């Protein structure tokens, strides 16, 4: 109680500090964060830390991952994607889009319409054929829900190229093209419209999402039943009706669309020095156990995940089933009321060494103890860097004892966001894939 009041007091006083600290990281305007007399841009020479030893880069099945401030917030890994009309005979009609978020927490390529040139946008094929569209010719439009909001826009087909790997003629989402009015159900369940944040904005640009989660298509549920705020078919601009969509016509994991190296990915990021790093370059490697650069080590920690990518984290005696390793979450997110907070970020006076144990919710495999560290996010973000391996958010919950079932009910979650990825190779293996004796979906590191 005492801790909470203290924490709350700090939170109330300092919300504006955190907001400016976070925003300042991406703006590059050199704003001074009130309460912290550090410039947002470091005024001293920044010496990049040499990356930890890693195998030579094999560009045949990998692309660089960049973590820098151009994505508009800390710890946002991005890749560059080339999009072409399906079957385009040459590259003249293609567009190369930087700053696409690498997201192990979702499935499919979703690009801001502002990042496409109008000529290309017009040439992308329209996806039709929704299950409940009796005529069968209405464009399919999606309301894609994320923890942080929603994206709205039509499903188009494109050739998606990442480095030297191409997924031909796969459904993607074009966000915010203004072609269709978002239905009330999408707006009311989605909340924040992520489309309003996408595209170029001054020195930053967040152009879309490359979802490389464990599924081949983005919603097995939507293939079977009409889910609210999901897929729609839209005969006209203002009349969209919720629908089922066959898996083959849903937004697709681009990796699953490659001819080879299509069973999963490896995200390999270097370890960071204390205090973070101004920017980071790592690798997104395609395939697991298919080439020398993506072999699953014999001593790898392997966690079977459920259909949505979740496993269980045990922390301070609590088994938290809403647990995932997620490159699209920009910090650790969990509940520990003993750590002071400022806004949503943990801000302990000195670094806290913590530990949790990961295990498959279905009981398979071995529990994996994972040490991690939480530092003072406000102090660190004053440097204006893009990469921090020890920032965490307080993800509160309201546990309640259900007298009718004698169970404690809780929405508690534990998200292992990008800080977890630094200094590791994180393997995301798809459903129905097999790596050695291990069947997907699983995550390994």
């Amino acid at each position, binding site marked *: 109680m005492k801790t909470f009041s203290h924490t709350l007091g700090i939170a109330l006083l300092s919300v504006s500090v955190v907001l400016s600290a976070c925003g300042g990281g991406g703006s590059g305007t050199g704003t001074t964060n009130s309460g912290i007399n550090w410039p947002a841009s470091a005024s001293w020479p920044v010496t990049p830390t040499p990356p930890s030893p890693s195998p030579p880069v094999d560009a045949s099945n990998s692309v660089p991952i960049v973590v820098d401030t151009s994505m508009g917030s800390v710890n946002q890994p991005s890749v560059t994607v080339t999009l072409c009309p399906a079957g385009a005979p040459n590259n003249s009609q293609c567009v190369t889009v930087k700053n696409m978020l690498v997201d192990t927490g979702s499935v499919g390529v979703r690009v801001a319409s502002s990042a496409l040139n109008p000529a290309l946008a017009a040439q992308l094929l329209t996806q039709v054929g929704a299950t409940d569209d009796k005529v069968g010719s209405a464009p399919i439009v999606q309301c894609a829900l994320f923890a942080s909001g929603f994206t709205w826009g039509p499903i188009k087909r494109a050739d998606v190229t990442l480095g030297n790997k191409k997924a031909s003629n796969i459904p993607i989402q074009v966000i915010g093209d203004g072609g269709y009015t978002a239905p009330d159900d999408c707006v009311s369940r989605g909340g924040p419209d992520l489309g309003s944040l996408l595209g170029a904005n001054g020195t930053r640009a967040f152009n879309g999402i490359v979802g490389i989660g464990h599924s081949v298509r983005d919603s097995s549920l939507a293939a079977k039943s009409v889910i609210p705020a999901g897929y729609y078919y839209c005969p006209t601009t203002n009349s969209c009706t919720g629908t089922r969509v066959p898996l083959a016509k849903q937004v697709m994991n681009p990796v699953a669309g490659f001819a080879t190296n299509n069973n999963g990915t490896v995200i390999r990021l270097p370890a960071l020095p204390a205090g973070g790093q101004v920017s980071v370059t790592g690798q997104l490697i395609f395939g697991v156990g298919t080439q020398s650069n993506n072999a699953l080590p014999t001593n790898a920690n392997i966690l079977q995940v459920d259909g949505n990518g979740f496993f269980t984290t045990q922390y301070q005696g609590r088994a938290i089933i809403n647990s995932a390793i997620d490159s699209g*979450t920009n910090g650790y997110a969990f509940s520990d009321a003993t750590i002071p907070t400022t806004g949503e970020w943990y801000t302990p006076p000195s670094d806290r060494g913590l530990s949790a144990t990961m295990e498959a919710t279905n009981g398979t495999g071995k529990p994996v103890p994972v040490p991690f560290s939480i530092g003072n996010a406000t102090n660190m973000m004053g440097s204006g860097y893009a990469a921090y391996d020890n920032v965490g958010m307080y993800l509160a919950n309201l546990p309640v004892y259900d*007298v*009718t079932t004698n169970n404690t*009910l809780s929405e508690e979650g534990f998200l292992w966001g990008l800080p977890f990825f630094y200094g590791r190779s994180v393997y995301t293996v798809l459903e129905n894939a097999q790596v050695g004796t291990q069947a997907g979906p699983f995550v390994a590191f």
Partner: protein
Amino acid sequence: MRFAKIALAAATLLPLTSHAVLGGAPAAGSSAPMSLRATQQAASSTASASSASTSTPIYSTAAYSVYESHDADGIAVREYVLPDNVVFAVTWQGPVRPDMNALLGSYFPNFVSAGEERLRGTGTLIQRNGELQIESAGRPGHFFGTASLPRLMPADLRANNLQ
């Protein structure tokens, strides 16, 4: 334009909702929390009905009661209600998010602006916006979260939250 749309959504959806409104009374059809003793008796005698309606609290203290409901889409929503019948917190868990406009009522714009005021990727949204504390987590297929009005939260629930 956006606000007009939100207002329109609110006007059309609110009367249809079966959930509570944050800062207001619990769902239509649910009785006001009765005395602590009466609700506990009701809870133990209608255990099987608790998942189908919000009329019986699943938990009560002198400071607040908790109601739970499940809808046809598999979304579980819990409402935390003060003795004077005001909802001070809601939680949700399910394959999609519940109708947040219906759930948050006049605080829905706070949720929207919490997410739209700056980039944070696709992951967990945790933010205080005005009176609303919102924590929205999960990923496609499984979402969960809480929304509360810290100003109204009873002290003993804050203490519980520390455990």
